[in-house]
């Protein structure tokens, strides 16, 4: 039988229809898997958010905990006419706020459909409960509880970080997060996110075609509970941290306190401080904080690069001792400065002359360390200046400078120690010698470090030659810390060389009035504080005030670096502040005869006088 072409086309058409019908019969009638999938779709999966882990200080005091907040939600499709004035009264909002919101919902009702939208963000529990009592009178409105951070004391705004809802770019980078999840941003919240966050749970409900929940799916057998996040213990001493923040009020700069025998950070203050009040609702304050010219978000303790100033003399002197170009009994003259070319000098303050090494540290003589530096860089044992300088640089790096220390802080800055190549490029291969770069000897010039580096130097002096990498998370059995934090890092300078320098530091603080010690203001009887002042030039105004110290001299328990921008002399602000920190930590209280100093520090204001022309 030969079919006409018309009939062949017809047969083809009927065949297609039969295939479609068979396929439809299969997916609609025979196969159940699509129906169970459809059940999934007409069920609602609701995430149960875990409570975030708490953050403790080293003594078990709470730094960060959780509280319950409520988002007031509204399903515009279910709202019935209500008394706007009454609702405004209960919620404590303007009547116009409610009217505007309702008008907006009406305008976009096609887009909203049966969904719920947020009416008021983050209501305090007390406010919400007032509404909850009468909620039945306002169909369509309901509250959704969620947990936000709470800070019992104003401690460590900068180091704790904050928690905020994930945004689209973040989800793109971290697909394991879903819209509506919260994530730690900055500080400890970010670095310990994996521990703190816990695991989300899941509740499944049935809903009808009006998006209303009608019951629990399989009586909740498929539901999973949220696993709360684990708590994190920090090395911070809460009281010391709070005290440091009080001392730094009205100033720009930072304080870092380290326990030398472990590398644990006891306090880390960056001023101006970020107020913890603003952390729990970062979204609201973000603009205000980000536009502050004093940049409170900027963690100066680990992110600001400063010249170290005279405290760097310790490093220069120790290198000289190790290289043999300096002996502790060498004396150099100083007549208000170091003349390295006709008409050119590195100035110095008035003190007696000549001095030996210990006294040079005690009195912070600039000339002395210029001689020391010249002898290191122009040491005939090396073939040229470059080789000697490279060796000098190796020593400096072994003190932790010029590189990231490897703390457990996100966004740590490495600082800068120049290389011989850099000077070759600037001055030419034969164009420079010790005098060209003489300012390095007193911690000025092409050198940058963070207050963390300086605190680490204080810890090295305290330990007489080694340091533990500073860290802020205290290792526990559950959450062990990296092995690198428990390893001693020795400098390239022999530990025996440190005693003379430490004694110089002790004399700088404890030599008594009139002896020429630069930091006698920091002296606290019985605590044996050893310290070194610094005064670093600041091109934007008055010099920066720097002080590093540790105490007691034997078996030190705390090492502190304080850096106060525009604080003029090291002894003016930094030394009192650092010594008060030590006194607070070791003695627990400030002695009566130093109360005046504490008051002066609390009230000192170095910000109002500043002109910011950004």
């Amino acid at each position: 039988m030969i079919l006409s072409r018309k009939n062949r086309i017809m047969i083809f058409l009927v065949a297609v229809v039969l295939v479609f019908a068979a396929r439809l019969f299969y997916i609609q009638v025979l196969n159940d898997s699509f129906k169970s999938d459809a059940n999934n779709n007409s069920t609602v999966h609701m995430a149960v958010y875990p409570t975030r882990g708490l953050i403790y200080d080293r003594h078990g005091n709470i730094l960060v905990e959780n509280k319950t907040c409520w988002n007031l939600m509204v399903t515009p499709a279910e709202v019935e006419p209500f008394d706007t004035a009454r609702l405004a009264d209960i919620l404590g909002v303007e009547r116009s706020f409610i009217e505007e919101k309702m008008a907006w919902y009406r305008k976009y009702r096609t887009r909203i459909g049966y969904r719920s939208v947020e009416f008021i963000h983050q209501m305090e529990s007390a406010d919400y409960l007032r509404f909850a009592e009468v909620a039945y009178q306002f169909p369509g409105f309901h509250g959704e509880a969620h947990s936000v951070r709470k800070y019992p004391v104003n401690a460590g705004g900068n180091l704790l970080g904050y928690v905020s809802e994930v945004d689209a770019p973040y989800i793109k980078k971290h697909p394991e997060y879903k819209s509506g999840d919260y994530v730690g941003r900055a500080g400890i919240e970010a670095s310990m996110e994996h521990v703190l966050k816990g695991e989300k749970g899941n509740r499944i409900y049935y809903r009808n075609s009006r998006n209303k929940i009608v019951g629990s799916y399989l009586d909740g057998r498929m539901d999973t509970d949220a696993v709360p996040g684990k708590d994190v213990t920090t090395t911070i001493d809460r009281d010391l941290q709070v005290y440091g923040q009080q001392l730094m009020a009205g100033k720009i700069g930072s304080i870092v306190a380290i326990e030398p025998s472990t590398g644990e950070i006891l306090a880390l203050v960056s001023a101006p401080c970020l107020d913890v009040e603003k952390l729990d609702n970062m979204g609201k304050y973000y603009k205000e904080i980000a536009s502050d010219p004093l940049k409170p978000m900027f963690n100066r303790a680990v992110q600001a690069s400063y010249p170290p100033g005279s405290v760097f003399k310790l490093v220069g002197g120790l290198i000289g001792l190790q290289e043999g170009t300096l002996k502790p009994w060498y004396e150099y003259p100083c007549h208000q400065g170091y003349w390295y070319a006709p008409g050119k000098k590195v100035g110095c303050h008035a003190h007696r002359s000549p001095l030996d090494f210990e006294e040079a540290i005690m009195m912070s003589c600039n000339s002395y360390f210029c001689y020391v530096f010249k002898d290191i860089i122009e040491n005939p044992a090396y073939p040229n200046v470059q080789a000697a300088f490279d060796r000098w640089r190796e020593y400096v790096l072994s003190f932790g400078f010029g590189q990231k220390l490897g703390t457990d802080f996100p966004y740590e800055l490495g600082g800068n120690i120049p290389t011989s190549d850099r000077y070759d490029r600037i001055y030419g291969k034969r164009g420079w010698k010790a005098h060209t770069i003489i300012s390095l000897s007193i911690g000025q010039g092409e050198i940058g470090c963070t207050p963390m580096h300086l605190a680490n130097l204080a810890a090295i002096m305290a330990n007489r030659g080694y340091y533990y990498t500073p860290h802020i998370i205290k290792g526990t059995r559950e959450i062990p810390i990296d092995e690198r934090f428990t390893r001693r890092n020795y400098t390239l300078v022999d530990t025996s060389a440190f005693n003379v320098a430490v004694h110089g530091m002790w004399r700088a603080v404890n030599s008594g009035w009139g002896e020429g010690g630069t930091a006698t203001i920091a002296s606290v009887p019985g605590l044996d504080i050893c310290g070194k002042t610094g005064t670093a030039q600041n091109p934007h105004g008055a010099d920066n005030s720097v002080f590093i110290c540790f105490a007691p001299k034997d078996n030190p328990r705390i090492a502190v670096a304080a850096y106060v921008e525009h604080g003029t002399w090291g002894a003016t602000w930094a030394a009192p502040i650092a010594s008060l920190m030590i006194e607070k930590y070791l003695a627990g209280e400030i002695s009566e005869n130093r109360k005046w100093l504490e008051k002066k520090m609390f009230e000192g204001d170095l910000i109002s006088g500043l002109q910011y022309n950004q």
Partner: protein
Amino acid sequence: MSKDPSSFSSKLERLDIVLVLLYLALVVFGWMNVYSAVHIQEISAFSFELRSGKQLLWIGLSLVTALCMVGFIPHRFYETLAVPIYLLSLMLLVAVLLVGTSVNGSHSWIVLGPVSFQPAEIVKISTALLLAKAMSAYGFDLKKRSHFLRTCGIILLPIALILMENETGCALVLLGFIIPLYREGLSGWYIVLAFTIVLLFILTLTISPLIAILISVFVGTLSCEYNEGSVIRWCYTTLPAILAVTVWVFVHDKVLEPGTTAAAILKPANIMIAGGAVGVFFYIRRLLRNLNPFRLFSLGAILLCIVFSLSVNFIFNHALQEHQRQRIEVLLGMKEDVSGAGYNLHQSLIAIGSGGLNGKGFLHGTQTTYGFVPEQATDFIFCTVGEEWGFLGSLFIIGLYLALMTRIISSADKCRDNFTRIYGYCVAACLMMHFMINIGMTIGLMPVIGIPLPLVSYGGSSLLAFSVLIFIFIVLESDERKFFAGKASQR
């Protein structure tokens, strides 16, 4: 016979009432489903805020246009003006390339104030008209090369322009005009070839190019021997060879230790090249003995298929665009990606599958209400049908289409006027392609290609274009009935 045959009422009487009713049934049922897909409590179905309200406006416009066509446009208008209409539509296609607006990644829309339309919709009509005119011309013979090439040109020119606009769906629909060509005498082997190429494309991507080549050899040689009436001989010569190589492809790595020299020499590709060389030798020898154009053609086709199979991966990875590639991958199950490119398909299957035998009832679909299915009022409207009306409702709508298309084909076939007949087949071909691709994609038998379900999907310009397309045929066909005025009433 007292009535004036040119009066409006007699024109109305002559219309194929069954066809008009089928058209109306689809439009009304379509509108209900569009409403269901977009409905929102408290907003009236007729409000212009909703798509259902706008669609109603377009339905009205389409009906008015249809009535005007029946009442005022002389039936010869279309044939006479086929060429200018075609040229005009091509100009619109070029214009859209220059000034068009992109919607959903296809650069094919012209926006005029509140109205936006796709010139590609008009091209379906104009190409059908010109095709009908060219092929109904006196002395036209598809077997003449010049005529054949001219016909191909009419179809391929707009296809090329549409492809430049990134509207794969529309281009595929125009390819459907191979059906009227077939009806008018084009060799069925072209269709076999076209299907083979599609099959090869799929097989190469899912299984391996080797199997695809074997299939093409299988189809090519079988059709060649079938054409010469020597299928039996084929069964004991070529078939065993093909089967042997096929088995070898699957077992070679189990028989021979991989990595050995023997395995390297005897790998399937080499065996096939050797076998192919022998085969081609015999083939050419027989070809020289008896120069048979079909044999030459089939040999060419096989070689073409082999080249095609080997280049499929290249085409797939380089010529296709990312979204097309993803859709094919999902359809062929090469990638299980429920929330990505496969999302549309997966949600569509869930919606249809959950309808069951009877459906959830009008306006009671859960999948449709929450907007799980994307493009639910337009390209995926069949999901709403499947979910709310169930298997029975789906059968009903498929049945309506089958009735519409077979009615058009059978009445076209009876037409004395070649123009009307060919045009009718073109209309049927257009509907068939849309029907196959659209429903095929929603039930997972075709890749997701965004073209609407004729008369049912939301979309004003599409509805209007299909109404015009179908009513041109209805008008032409009613004119045909003038000749059978007496019988027409009995029919």
